[in-house]
């Protein structure tokens, strides 16, 4: 396992990235620039520094020792080159929790931009008997998807808009490759959860949602569709990168937005509800 990859973060007890209790590896680098992105620090593949001005006590340690010398979490290094062996070892630390329907998810950024690294890690995890998910926006060449197919139990695949113009407008790229990759996965029979971020007035037009429903009904393996409202969650991170935070879904009835969209999708549409909505 000599392969190395750029890893942004490993989240243990991850409950939103597939079934059960999981550990999620977020890899760095992304091929899309979604307007509402919650993880702008994931765009570049290389490690970078975030600066949280509010936490800075102006001690000057960073001037002498770089971001790693910061003791107050004001300068934070995001991303590091990590070997597959190291990453898999870390992911396996929660092995005992995976037995009850959980496992490991590779996410990003776009994990399939580092498809070979992802595939090696997944292969080792499968050897250890772990359930594997790949959470991807699929804006990658087909070969990248094919590289992980043998080791993937479940795909969590984003579909931001069925409409290529809208897709380009909100992500900076068309959706041709994405739809082709969804068809590719469909042919393998590997189950998929489709995840659709919804921004009011942007990608929720009835016509596009109807087309989405038609498209999904032609795919095998779609076992679940998650409709995820786009919210402003990442203001601090944008500022820490010196960027202006985007504004979405302000003053929007999110529940109504999801309910209306679910009505168009002739599928078992359910969001991943937090505890207080279930109990």
């Amino acid at each position, binding site marked *: 396992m000599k392969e190395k990859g750029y890893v942004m973060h490993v*989240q*243990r*007890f*991850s*409950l*939103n990235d597939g079934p*059960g*209790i999981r*550990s999620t590896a977020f890899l760095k680098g992304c091929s899309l620039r979604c307007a509402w992105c919650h993880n702008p620090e994931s765009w570049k593949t290389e490690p970078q520094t975030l600066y949280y001005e509010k936490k800075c006590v102006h*001690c000057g*340690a960073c001037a002498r020792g770089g971001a790693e010398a910061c*003791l*107050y*979490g004001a300068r934070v290094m995001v991303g590091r080159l990590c070997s597959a062996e190291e990453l898999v070892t870390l992911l396996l*630390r*929660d092995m*005992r*929790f995976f037995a*009850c*329907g*959980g496992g490991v998810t590779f996410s990003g950024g776009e994990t399939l931009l580092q498809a070979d690294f992802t595939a090696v890690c997944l292969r080792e995890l499968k050897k250890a008997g772990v359930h594997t998910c790949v959470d991807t926006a699929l804006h990658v060449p087909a070969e990248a998807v094919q590289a992980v197919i043998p080791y993937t139990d479940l795909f969590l695949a984003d579909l931001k808009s069925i409409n290529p113009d809208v897709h380009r407008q909100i992500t900076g790229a068309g959706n041709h490759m994405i739809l082709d990759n969804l068809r590719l996965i469909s042919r393998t029979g590997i189950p998929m959860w489709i995840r659709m971020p919804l921004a009011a007035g942007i990608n929720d037009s009835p016509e596009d949602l109807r087309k989405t429903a038609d498209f999904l009904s032609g795919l095998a393996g779609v076992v679940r569709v998650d409709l995820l409202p786009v919210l402003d969650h990442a203001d601090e991170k944008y500022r820490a990168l010196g960027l202006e935070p985007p504004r979405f879904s302000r003053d929007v009835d999110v529940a109504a937005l999801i309910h209306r969209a679910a009505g168009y999708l002739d599928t078992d549409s359910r969001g*991943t*509800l*937090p*505890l*207080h909505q*279930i*109990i």
Partner: protein
Amino acid sequence: MNTGEILENFTRMISGMEVSVPEEGILAGPVRPIRHAMASSRFVNYGIGWDNAHFPLDYGLLMREGIPGIIRRASRPAENLSREAAEYRRLVADCWRLISGYIRRHADAAEELASSCPEDAARLERISRNCRSLTERPPESFEEGLQLFWFIWRLRAYYTSSIGRMDRHLYPLYARDVPDRISREEACGLLIELFGLLTAVHSGDTLMNLMVGGTDEEGRDSTNDLSLLIIEASIRAPGSEPHINIRLHENSPESLRDAAARMIADCRGQGVLYYDRNIIPDLVRRGIPVEYARSYANDGCTELTFDRHSAIWFWQMESMKTLELALFRGTENPAAPHSEYRKWAAWQPARLFESKLRFGFDSGDPCDCESFESFLQLFLRQFRYQIRCMLEEISREIIRNEAPDGPLTSPIAAGLVEKTLDTGTDPMRGGWEVRNYQLLSGSLPTTADCLYGIRRAVFDEQRCTMAELLEALQGNFEDDEPLRAWLKQLPKFGNDCDETDFLAAMLADEFCTCVEEYEDPSGVMILPGIYNIDFNMFASVLGASPDGRKAGDPICAHFSPTPGCAVSGPTAVIASASKAALHRGCASSPLYLSLPRAMGALDLQHIRTLIDICGEAGLPIVSLSVYNRELLEDARVHPEKHGDLIVRVWGFNARFVDLDANLQDHIIGRIL
């Protein structure tokens, strides 16, 4: 105090007790909120003999024999009794006769009210009938059983007491009634009424621990429908009492595990989990007969008692203060605060707190240590010394308790000990089969974080000398902020970091070994527990510490991470705790795991998984809670809006708004 004085005091106590027939509901007997009594300085010891109220009585015996049976057994002729034993037995019988008379007064009062209140006569006559029956025979219905429990529980201690395995003791009456005589729903209503009365006592650190599930003495699963109904009633009842504890083992039914998950998801800190597999074998290893080990429940907090077979005595030795004594050569950090504290509630009077550690033992000059290993040995000398001092203190207490002229146990408690009824043996001197004396460790994980800080700062990276570190601690880091910040950001226990976790595990092992190897002159096997009770009070008398903690900042509870230090999620916390052989701390070694309610898509299945895995990971006791952090924070600012918020404190649940501010901080700080 002799039997004559106790009888005199008991008579005065009973005659002064109010007779209380409820305006609604069916359970008679006074509530008397403790808060009112304490605030008005009427908190008195009646002088009716020893009973620390921290252990459950044999309520099974109470249900089987009833009051007349207890009086009969204590009065039955017995040969070859010493004069003392005969006198003590007579005292027990006399006191239970007084109890019977007190209950009869309720029967009479309810009957009189019924005659003057025809529209409510049916209910009042029912109360009267129940009470009168209890003076004539054992209870014959679930309702009578609950009524009898409530009277005895209420009389036993002026304030509050432990409850024990109610699902075992009341099940025969429950099974007789449900569903043929009353519906399950009606039984639930009765439980909710009882729980309402317990809540109305409003005692803060309430000791009202109730255990469900587990096994019988032969090791068979003893979960029954009443176990599940108690959990259901607790979820439906609006108050904080009683505190529900759930014993799980390999053969516990899915229904019990599911009920535990539902209770935890209810966000009120209810449902502490006890894993038999990680508790019973070590109790047996410590010499407790297996049938008694299998009967364990918990006391007023989380420590184990042996339901029907023991009382409990416990001492705590704070390891963080011990570290301070090691660093300052047997004295406190000169800058250690001596602020006043409140034990738990904002309405209690503030007092100065004493650590009960022995000052003056110089375990060596830390500045002479040339390696971390030599410093560790220096600390362990102090640690072992303090443990030894505490153990010797316990031994002296055992001798006092077991001396022929030792204190007499309260006749209420003694009346529910089979051997005492038959032989007049005081429970403390042979009536209870298990001599349950415990030593608790204090805050080992925070201590481990401190040791790790010393290792990195002074020895591995030489950021400062030991003398400079001590100076920084004396100055509360006021002039050493960069050092404090650096210490603070080092890995801490609770993040699955081997360096800190194995230090904590080593301390736990060392503590248990010291306790296990101690030979008590009276032959008692003192039980070790990785546990602390007054962590917030100890924090208030601790100076700054080498984990980057400033004076007065919180220390951890039990074997849990220091508040705010676990940043890698609950699986990492479980992994950290599971590196220690916590089962050795068989008196009680709990982990607190508080999850935020808004944690992703957290659902019942995730909680179920955590419940199962904690047991598989070797943890003996887990307080798994889900809290709404935003709500708790709002409750600090607007207590008037959140009177119904209930949280787990150390071994008890309380209304969040009643707690002292530093305990409120601790509870919010624990949330991952």
